[in-house]
């Protein structure tokens, strides 16, 4: 790991962010970061299109779900303030309904 970088978080998508993250994957590197901080980093990195697809009035856009290592962020005790660890995986997905 490069100097000054304490963690890498893998971001992938399922049905979401199709314009701002067309290949559906990204790696966010940094030091201590929360889930909310990571969303802000994604917007900084990918610009206004990401902001439009990801957030509405500062909150996760309706119809989207965010899983941290498979757990819904809303099920975690600290929710969007959850501190991420090196190797964590975020899935930003559209709400589905079975099959």
């Amino acid at each position, binding site marked *: 790991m490069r100097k000054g970088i304490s963690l890498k978080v893998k971001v992938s998508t399922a049905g979401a962010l*199709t314009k701002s993250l067309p290949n559906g994957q990204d790696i966010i590197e940094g030091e201590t970061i929360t889930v909310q901080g990571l969303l802000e980093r994604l917007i900084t990195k990918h610009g206004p299109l990401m902001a439009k*697809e990801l957030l509405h009035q500062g909150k996760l856009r309706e*119809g989207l779900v965010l*899983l941290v290592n498979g*757990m819904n962020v809303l099920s975690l005790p600290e929710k969007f303030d959850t501190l991420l660890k090196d190797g964590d995986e975020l899935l930003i*997905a559209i*709400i*589905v*309904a*079975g099959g």
Partner: protein
Amino acid sequence: MLKGYKGRLLHIDLTRERSNVVQIPEEILRKYIGGRGLGAKLYWDLIPAKADPLGPENIMFILSGPVGGTITPGAGKHVIVTKSPASKGWLDTYSSGRMTPEMKFAGFDGLVITGKAKYPVYVLIKDEKVEIRDAGHLWGKGSFEVEAYIKETFHPECGEICIGPAGENLVNFACINSEFFRQAGRGGAGAVMGSKNLKLLAVKGSGGIQVAHLQRLLDLVLKHHAKFKVSPIGIARHRYGTPLTYNITHAAGMLPTRNFKTGRFERGLGKIDKDGVYHATISTRACYSCPFLACSKFTEVKDGVYQGAKLEGPEYETIGLLGSNLEIESLPFIIKANYLCDDLGMDTISAGNVIGFVMECFEKGILTKKETEGLDLRFGNHQEAITLLERIAYRKGFGSFCAQGVRAMAKSLDRGAEDFAMESKGLEFPAYDPRAGWGTSITYSVTPRGGCHRRAWPPMREVLGGVYPFTTEGKAKMVKELMDDNCVMHSLLVCDFQGKFIPLDTSEFAEYLNAVTGLNYSAKDLYERADIIETLIRRINLREGFTAEDDHLPRRILEESLPEGPPEGKVIGQKNFLKMRNEYYLVRGWDNQGIPTHETLSKYKYDEEPPIKL
């Protein structure tokens, strides 16, 4: 008379080769709505307790809903209600196509099929005229050939249902096909149809449907179409269809893998998930009366051993059970196996469970090549899986053993096999492991038709909604709410997906019902009816001899943990399971043995209803 409904059923007696019209009292339609609800009333009144599911005394009800055949979103569904050869109890199984509109255009809310034909027959219904014809030339044929035959010789826009060879051979999980690639898949309704010597039924009507408030109905459709067009959920659904679910369940650790031994299948990512199917897609198709989603994907295999295979699908459930559950990451195999199941007339969910169960038995040495007649049924061996599917449909040797379904196979094998037989009430599990969201353990156990994802879909709350998955707290109430939502949709007979993707809630569905029929129901009125319906279906199963012991799950689900992802190391346990189950009984107004209490029965006044007679 209420608008939307026809107030009549067409009864066809295959034994006597006669038909007659049966009136449905308006008070029954007001109480039971239609679809599943009307099916419950008909089953209660007309199918004798302890009837042989494959005997002439069993009855098939093919039913529409009050909004069916109109422009209500997703109103192209029909339901087949009968006694299941898999569970030996209640079965409701759903499909889409032109059956519902054409039954209504012919003047009926549904069909009642009784008796057994002396020889293989097919039935043609043109308005009130019924013809029973010799099906000797169709018997033994695959579903696609039969469907093409009737569309060409009867009417290209008829509604039709038919069975493949698996239904003729009474395979326990034979399905009923409609409209090419659409199946009433679960619970073995195809075997019931086969037991009646009925290969095919088609209907064409020349009438219409009266709507109480046409402008209100048009306004609702336009409003919701506008809402859908900007919904990111709807747009993604249109683009990816149901395979998108794979990526969610994989992440959540609930994707069935190696016969539900694990809950993630990394090798499938990019191959059999949303991207795999998206890249194999050549076109899309919408159901009747769905101007919204067109979520069905046509796929084609362009090279390799399965080159040339084409399919409408595969849907997520098939990918989960015939893919990850068998540790097979080959989309071409899944397309080919799905096509075979459709043509032979077998449910892909149960078929995938049966093969997964066999593969685990093979791995454990409970089954060897001697019993499988030379088939090397290791996990991942897709070519042998194809061979087994064909042997099951034609009941050849070991295939006939597998045609019984997982419950009977496990019981026969013994040696601990029942611990990993993934079924409840004889119906094999869909593609969601209950250990990754404990609400699903209630759904799979208490659902009257057995292991079923369509009574309720708890991952909507436990994975997508932020409800903590690994607790018993609040789960019984949550499952009841989800079940009541679906009961309303399945009694109106609209597609589940409209509600979730437009999205629409129950009060909005009530608006559609009121616009079509002239009723003035609220969401509360509909929820009360959902409880009436689910309690009557409970009474049906109790009358068939079911007890609380039948609301159970295999040991693997209750006592083993999954090895990775969020559910890693977490065990539901018998105590937690029974707590949730008892709480579910309680919120339904049933006692601790799952028997509706005197107060509940008095409240719903079942005994004061007029019986329906044929």
